[in-house]
């Protein structure tokens, strides 16, 4: 089950008195699928990184009962390990490892007793994403779509209640992107995961419950979609 998100008076400073992002109020229910769009440099990725606890900010970001900004760096990291899966535009896989090892990457820093279960989940995710037969192949031989599927399996291997995706389809051709969007949306809905996806891709944002529009570091639009 996903986590609900409550943001209030969030300000992400950019140094020299600049403000990268200012978000007075935002509430998302658990399991919501939310798209974030806006022009380049508007602060979309900044929002995503702030929600992952990777940026210093003022105000409040509350995931469920956890006030993220009050946590120290290592506790935030632990929170991320347990609760947040991340997907990036250029996949960020370890090219030297096979698909299975990439998907189960986070098992490497989990306590020994959790590692086997984690690997099993990663392998199930790969199967669900149609890559079950290719777990032993090195990802360097994969297509972009396949790589992003491995990245999704990795993000979901810990059964994190929150999935943050940064332009997940931007490096893919249309057909691959559409297949990936289907898979991502189904997986998120089936598991009740809260999904926040920054994207220029209307095919993706149209499948979300809500779409936020960010321009110049401020939230200018918050619309429910037909999905």
């Amino acid at each position: 089950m996903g986590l609900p998100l409550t943001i209030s008076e969030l300000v992400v400073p950019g140094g020299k008195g600049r403000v990268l992002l200012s978000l007075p109020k935002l509430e998302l229910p658990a399991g919501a699928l939310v798209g974030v769009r806006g022009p380049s440099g508007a602060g979309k990725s900044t929002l995503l990184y702030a929600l992952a606890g990777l940026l210093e900010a003022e105000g409040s970001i509350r995931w469920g009962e956890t006030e993220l900004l009050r946590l120290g760096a290592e506790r935030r990291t632990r929170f991320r390990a347990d609760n947040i899966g991340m997907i990036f535009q250029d996949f960020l896989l370890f090219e030297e490892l096979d698909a299975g090892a990439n998907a189960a990457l986070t098992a490497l820093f989990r306590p020994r007793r959790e590692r086997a279960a984690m690997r099993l989940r990663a392998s199930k995710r790969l199967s669900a994403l149609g890559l079950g037969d290719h777990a032993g192949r090195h990802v360097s031989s994969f297509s972009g779509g396949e790589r992003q599927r491995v990245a999704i399996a990795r993000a979901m291997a810990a059964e994190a209640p929150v999935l943050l995706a940064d332009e997940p389809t931007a490096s893919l051709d249309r057909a691959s992107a559409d297949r990936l969007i289907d898979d991502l949306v189904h997986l998120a809905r089936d598991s009740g995961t809260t999904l926040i996806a920054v994207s220029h891709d209307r095919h993706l944002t149209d499948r979300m419950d809500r779409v936020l529009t960010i321009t110049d570091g401020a939230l200018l639009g918050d619309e429910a979609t037909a999905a």
Partner: protein
Amino acid sequence: MSDLWYSLPALAQDIALTFALLLPALLVGALVLRGFAPWPLTRAILWRFRGASVMFVLLIAISVGMGIGLLAQERGLRRGTAQAADKFDLVVSAPGSELSVMLAAVFLQPTDMPLLDGATYDEIASHENVSVAAPLAFGDSYGDAPVIGTTAEFARDLADDRIEGRMWQASDEALAGALVPLGVGESFTPAHGHGDAAEGDAHGDAHLRIVGRMAPTGTPWDRAILLPVEAVWEVHGLANGHAPERAGQIGPPFDPDYFPGTPAVVVRAEALWANYALRSEFTRDRETMAFFPGAVLAGLYAVLGDIRQVMSLMALVTQGLVAASVLLGLFILSRLFRRQIALLRALGAPARFVFAVVWSFGAALLVAGAGLGLLTGVAAASVLSRVVTARTDILVTAPIGWSEIHFLAGFVSLTLLLSLLPAAIVLRQQVVDGLRA
């Protein structure tokens, strides 16, 4: 505590010291890696930067190998020279430089030396505590081989009684050292002097025949031709050490009145303690000088000991510098996998895990380099030994000893500790900057 330490056998002390030197690295390794499995990522990073990794490993291996090889070689040389002096318990000569006499008598380096007369020799030879008193007569050569006159007893002792063929029985017979290019049955004419200055026809009418070949001794004597001391005196037109009525005698006792003189006498005492008594007895101003070649060598090693320490320090500093440049390279490399590091942090990897990945990457390079360096050191020491043995005829073997192992353990420990630094610097990088890089 120190009593316990000294009560341990040497091997146990060496092993314990090695372990103690490695302990800091082992502890750090255990602390850094505890609870994590960074190896698949370490392997991936090693593979990605395989070219640079191989270069680093080779660089470390060569510097470690050279350090170890030199240290082992230096010890091997000491051991080889000490072994060469083994058969020379006590040497009596005319007063002068002990070092020169030792170089001449033990290592057969030609030098002009004053002679001891027959009365002095007789006094030494007939001393109650002396069991062997062998005169040595230098000065002639055949090709590269010095020709040395002495007694059959000393020649036999030198070869540990392992002589192929037989011992000389007449003054025109000789024994060849193991490396002399003359076979049993071949004849030769000794030249007066050595090397370029040798006068080949000075002893033109002397024809000597090789009747036996000595087993290898691992000393410069392997290159020498030994003959009865009487033969050397005779070819120089001197009396042959015996009264005319016993002119055909070979070997002691010699008649002091017909004894032409000898530059040095190798003395062996009846008992070990007697050597010391003999040394003080024959150390007389302006008459004789008696010394233990082993003690002269020990004095020489003591002087060279400081140089050895400087050498060890230089080897250590050189290796430290190589290690430092490797660590710097490691840091530069880590900038290349900055995105992967940032990714790990974004996926929730604890700082210590990232630290473990970077550190184990450096540790793998250092340990592989040190291991390969040990092999390089063994190879370097063996090549150097062969070169030194070929050039000096002193058999030098330089197996890797515990001091090299300790040196290596110290190096590994220190550098593994130092490689915590780049790992710590990598952690200071901003995750978001890394992701966007």
